[in-house]
């Protein structure tokens, strides 16, 4: 038997004449964790879909357990022991954990009648594979992302999986949940299962993987042992450019605070929150999911009215009751979930960028200046290097990182005093992340007051000169300057 569980040689795939994969080679060893890394749009998902049988390759050779495989269909892939856990997890949110676990094997077995006892046995067997405990009758939709993921893993194990592919599993997880997931991954690895882990987060890849395969523009540019690679080399291979990891140095902090929050309380969300923010500062607010950070941010943008406490803006007390009011008060908010809250995907890029500044781009009668809208969008396209040839194309044509740049431009093209960024680089690749951070630094030094809400600690540490840590709706720690380190924050969070 071959040393490798899965070998792929010279895989090519084109869509409408565009090469998505160009002679990609890679190998997966049994009982090892292999990381597939690359920026958004580099062909990672296409490759996964070829392995799982969703797409058919144009050229190339696939060898599974030493046997050449000519054609892969999804059913064939499952039979061979290949399981993919997609980002959306493919679960049924309105069914129970038990039903979710049992449904696939019930369907495969062609059973026509429901036997609750058999379902329960199947579900228990699945959970026992990784020694995971959860209420079998809980509704799937009510579980946290981390729990959903573990259930999805258990479900995959029911099919005697030999290779489990996880598509960016850590995107929506907090640090603690990532650790728990990694424990499970190691457990699976030690039992002889090969794991293919797709990610673009440098730290995670170095923490978990044995082998790494880096892709760029449809080609694999590096494959080999993770231990032979340094983080800098890794970033270089991924982006094709040298990246500098500049920490934010505030240069221009005002004396008077622009925003003061005093004893702000909304029972059940957050309590007695007090902090101030000066111009030129980047303030980080971090904490686990459910710590009240997002709820607090929404209150500052008029979408979650606080019950008591005061907000003072430029010296006068204000009540922010709606996003319209917030906008008038020169507060901008880049939401957590850019797809549902930030973008109109089926509308042009230009219209998305200018959506919050139509007042400026129209005359007193509300008549649009179409040319100004295009010009404005063009300026942001260049300033942010948004990867498109025409700003009249739909926002849906862009990758995650470029889409996030649109959402940011939307607010930055307004005259703002305070900009609140909630998870500004979630699901954004390294290159775009760098662009976004650099621009935020520049704007802060020009006098903008910025709040970054994030659970990506390295993001908080490199970008914020001051950090507030929240836990269960309260501020449990504050640090600034050199005290802002990942270790210090972790100590308070846990």
């Amino acid at each position: 038997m071959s040393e490798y569980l899965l070998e792929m040689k010279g895989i090519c795939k084109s869509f409408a004449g565009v090469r998505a994969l160009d002679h990609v080679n890679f190998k997966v060893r049994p009982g090892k964790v292999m990381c597939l890394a690359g920026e958004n749009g580099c062909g990672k998902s296409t490759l996964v879909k070829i392995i799982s049988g969703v797409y058919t390759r144009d050229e190339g050779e696939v060898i599974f357990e030493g046997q050449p495989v000519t054609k892969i269909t999804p059913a064939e892939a499952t039979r061979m022991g290949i399981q993919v856990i997609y980002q959306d997890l493919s679960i049924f949110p309105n069914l129970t954990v038990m039903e979710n676990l049992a449904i696939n094997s019930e369907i495969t077995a062609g059973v026509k009648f429901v036997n609750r006892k058999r379902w329960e046995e199947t579900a228990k067997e699945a959970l026992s594979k990784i020694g995971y405990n959860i209420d079998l009758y809980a509704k799937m939709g009510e579980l946290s992302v981390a729990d959903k993921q573990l259930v999805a893993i258990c479900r995959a194990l029911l099919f005697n999986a030999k290779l489990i592919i996880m598509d960016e599993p850590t995107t929506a997880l907090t640090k603690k949940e990532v650790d728990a997931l990694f424990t499970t991954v190691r457990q699976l690895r030690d039992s002889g299962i090969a794991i293919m882990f797709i990610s673009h987060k440098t730290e995670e890849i170095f923490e978990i993987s044995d082998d790494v395969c880096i892709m760029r523009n449809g080609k694999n540019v590096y494959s080999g042992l993770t231990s032979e690679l340094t983080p800098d080399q890794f970033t270089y291979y991924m982006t094709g450019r040298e990246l500098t990891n500049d920490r934010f140095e505030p240069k221009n902090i005002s004396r008077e605070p622009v925003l003061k929050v005093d004893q702000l309380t909304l029972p059940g969300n957050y309590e007695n929150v007090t902090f101030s923010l000066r111009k030129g500062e980047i303030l980080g607010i971090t904490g686990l999911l459910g710590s009240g950070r997002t709820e607090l941010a929404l209150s500052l943008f008029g979408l979650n009215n606080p019950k008591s406490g005061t907000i003072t803006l430029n010296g006068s007390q204000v009540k922010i009751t709606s996003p319209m009011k917030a906008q008038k008060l020169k507060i901008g908010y880049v939401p957590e979930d850019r797809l549902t809250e930030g973008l109109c995907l089926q509308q042009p890029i230009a219209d998305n960028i200018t959506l919050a500044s139509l007042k400026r781009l129209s005359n007193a009668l509300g008549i649009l200046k179409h040319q100004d809208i295009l010009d404005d969008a063009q300026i942001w396209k260049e300033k942010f290097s948004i990867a498109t040839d025409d700003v009249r194309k739909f926002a849906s044509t862009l990758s995650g990182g470029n889409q996030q740049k649109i959402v940011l431009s939307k607010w930055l093209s307004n005259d703002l005093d305070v900009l609140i960024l909630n998870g500004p680089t979630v699901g954004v690749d390294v290159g775009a992340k760098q662009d976004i951070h650099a621009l935020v630094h520049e704007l802060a030094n020009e006098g903008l007051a910025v709040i970054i809400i994030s659970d990506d600690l390295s993001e908080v540490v490199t970008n914020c000169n001051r950090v507030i840590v929240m836990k269960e709706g309260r501020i449990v720690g504050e640090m600034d300057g050199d005290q802002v380190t990942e270790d210090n924050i972790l100590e308070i969070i846990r």
Partner: protein
Amino acid sequence: MKEFVNKNRYMTMLLGLLAVILVLFTITKGSLLWTGGTWKGIVMQFPEYGVITLGIMFCFVSGHIDMSFVALGDFASIIAVRYMAAHTPENGTNGQIMGVILVGLLIAVLIGALGGVINGVLIAYLNIPPVMATIAMQLVWLGLSTALTQGYAVNGVPALYTEIGHSNVFGFIPFPLLVFIIVFIICAFLLKFTTYGEKLYMLGSNIKAAKFSGINTKAMLIGTFVFADVVATIGCMLMVSSNNSAKADYGTSYVMQVILILVLAGVLPDGGLGKITNVVLAIVTVQIISSCINMFKDLNIYYANMIWGGLLIVVLILGTKLNGEGLIRKKKKA
């Protein structure tokens, strides 16, 4: 050419459909189709529901649907006609009668606006699904009209009103067509050249993102329903002049016809989509089909509904191909 087709898929489809229909009916009923009378009829008839369609287009662009507009318009016209009948002085001068007509029209428009506010509040503030809310309101207006009139037509429309409705402006433009053209210009201007129109398309594609961009989505929705229902009521007032009366169930078939036209034009109730020029093209197409069907005297008129239903299904299938992944995916594989 290829670029035009790709950019204007709906327009291409509509022009194609129109061509097929004209050829088909020229072969079967050519002698009847190509007469001045037929085309005059076509031009006289489509403005009625054409005006309504232009109004309801705004609801669709915002990502919502309205089912109540005809019932609301009928109710408004019943009240307006009752007012006009009661206040028209016998042997009054044209000026006096004109005054009564204008007050009557104002009443109709105000009732239309009220219906729009109710729809908007139910949907934007009370979060009731638009289909449910507007079907319920449709029943409310229909019930009110029927109770008021016992189901009979309300007569007594001033002769002057009917006269104006049948007149030709500048000697050659039928009055209803002029109303349609004016409404079209206003709607096209609002959609294409104002911040309101821009926001409406954005709100229709993603209402949450619009809200997060500082747009007053609730006020926008109420305003949109008011505009749509007022315009629809104006369409119903045109109906009054052609029928010379108002009735609780005039134009009930227009509800489905308006939805058919909008979908045909690519203005899907999912929101954020569609061009007003395509809507006009679809209105004309549907009128031509309808006039042609009427030429087959031996065809039972009740089959017309079946034809509309069938056409709606065909259009929906084509529509998902034109907008959705159907066509695009095929292209990728090729």
